[in-house]
């Protein structure tokens, strides 16, 4: 496992990466802004088109991207530990499905953006409550039952989404598809998501060692003094809320929540640091945030002025990188 010094060092390095990615996002675009100008704009000592572009367009979008990437990666890491399933991602419990049904229904009804977001959040919460109340029936959080309930709710939502898409008017389809693939073009007020990301880290980091034990099985964790039911129930709810906020902000961006925790874990295993959540959780959040900022910057510059949905880009970039790393991993016995 990493020492405390190693952990702090890695986190500082990842913070620098985060700053670098945010800077790149503020400078790059169809209207290039020089680094000095960006700095002046941030300090409030510049005006003009450049400052406007940086402060009103790029900064909110970059912060929203960072927050969503961080939220998804953190939620994914938590779900993988709690479900003890490396295939788990933040959407596995049907939360994004619920949000999609909410958002697309609002779009179908022609509601304003703020109401679409509200409907997405309500849908996410509804799916979450449905899954938890059904899976919690016998007062034990059985993993299989939770997973199964989540998968069923997600597929039900998938059917509802397909229904909405098939009856939606043609001019509305583009927006709906972008929402489904994940898009940061409409993220205008990122502070809520940033605050939730911070809150998520503050609430989970004190329990990181407990989560290390839970990853080794409930019996062992209980025998070594973890209050299994409380910690597990609390973290499930928290991970679901983080996911709901991310999905409300940017639609269902795929891949970040599944792949970033794996990338961090693979890197940690290479260093001989195992699966220590004390490093894995903050590192996933920071790496996920930076990655989504970079992906979104690419998404709006690569074939500018046209914009790509960022979720497509995360998948296109993430799949080969992940397969490459997985192939290089030493083969295990069994």
């Amino acid at each position, binding site marked *: 496992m990493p020492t405390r010094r190693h952990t702090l060092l890695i986190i500082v390095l990842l913070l620098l990466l985060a700053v670098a990615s945010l800077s790149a996002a503020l400078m790059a675009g169809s209207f290039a802004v020089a680094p000095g100008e960006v700095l002046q704009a941030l300090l409030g000592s510049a005006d003009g088109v450049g400052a406007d572009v940086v402060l009103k367009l790029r900064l909110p979008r970059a912060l929203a991207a960072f927050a969503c990437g961080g939220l998804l990666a953190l939620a994914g890491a938590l779900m993988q530990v709690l479900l003890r399933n490396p295939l788990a991602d933040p959407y596995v419990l049907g939360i994004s499905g619920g949000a999609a049904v909410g958002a697309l229904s609002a779009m179908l009804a022609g509601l304003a953006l703020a109401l679409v977001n509200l409907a997405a959040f309500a849908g996410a919460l509804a799916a979450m409550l449905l899954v938890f109340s059904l899976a919690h029936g016998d007062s034990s959080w059985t993993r299989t039952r939770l997973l199964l309930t989540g998968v069923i709710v997600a597929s039900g939502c998938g059917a509802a989404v397909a229904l909405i898409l098939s009856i939606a008017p043609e001019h509305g389809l583009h927006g709906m598809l972008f929402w489904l693939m994940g898009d940061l073009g409409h993220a205008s007020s990122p502070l809520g998501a940033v605050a939730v990301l911070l809150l998520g880290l503050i609430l989970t980091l004190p329990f990181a060692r407990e989560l290390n034990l839970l990853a080794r099985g409930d*019996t062992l964790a209980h025998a070594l003094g973890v*209050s299994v039911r409380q910690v597990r129930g609390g973290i499930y709810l928290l991970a679901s809320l983080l996911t709901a906020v991310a999905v409300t902000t940017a639609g269902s961006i795929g891949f970040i929540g599944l792949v970033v925790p794996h990338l961090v874990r693979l890197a940690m295993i290479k260093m*001989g640091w195992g699966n220590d959540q004390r490093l894995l959780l903050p590192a996933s959040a920071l790496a996920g945030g930076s990655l989504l900022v970079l992906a979104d910057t690419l998404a709006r510059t690569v074939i500018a002025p046209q914009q790509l949905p960022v979720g497509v880009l995360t998948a296109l970039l993430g799949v080969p990188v992940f397969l490459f790393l997985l192939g290089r991993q030493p083969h*295990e016995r069994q």
Partner: protein
Amino acid sequence: MNVSKPAMPAPLLETRQLEVSIGGHLVCRDLNWRVVAGESWAVLGRNGAGKSTLLATLAGLRAQDQGRLNIAGLALPQAGRGAGARAMARVRGYLSQHQIDPFASTVMESVLVGRHPHLGRWDWESAADRQIAEAALNEVDLGGFAEREVQTLSGGERQRLAVAQLLAQQPQLFLLDEPLTHLDLSHQVAVMELFARRATAGAAVVAVLHDPGFAARYCRQALLLFGNGEWLAGPAAEVITAAHLGRLYGHPLRELGGDGQRWFVPA
């Protein structure tokens, strides 16, 4: 009356009228039992008699049906829940029958997990914790394995790693569910001797075992579970006999002896 008795040590484990059942099957009824420091108990019974269920109950991992259960004076299951779980983990250690490793981890990391109940929320494993972990690895003959990946260990090595994890936990009461699983003969003896030494040093050991010969040789007390709620507890010399074992396993056994050792073979 003024009768002076020798001072009884406070029991590490005490049950009163304890009733445990699982899935409608009665494991024990009216179990009145005390385990004090220095004792080493073997728990014997046939498959499905409920040995593991009883042990998990004693560890506070599941609730009893009826009766009182105290570990070091704390009433279970309440004292083992929530915030009390950590304090409980400093007193009693539990070796599970199954070890699972869903994620990659080194051997050293896995042993250090045993230090969890001794660390504060923001503490990091210290050099002293690593020394304890290394000593534990040496004790189970895994001295050079610290950096090995857990998922590459053999079954017996993995089992000894679980024992090392328990030793690093440093409890006063060891609850062992089939500690000899997967172990070869020499390591079976080594692990039994290791826990016998812990008992001599002032800990208490309760071990679910399958070989009555090992039980008679390494444990000074025995608890027999007959599978219908009946039980028998007492000194190993009195409880582990061919007659009792014949009834326990539903198969006649013959006692062989010599050099102060007793072994039991199916008749």
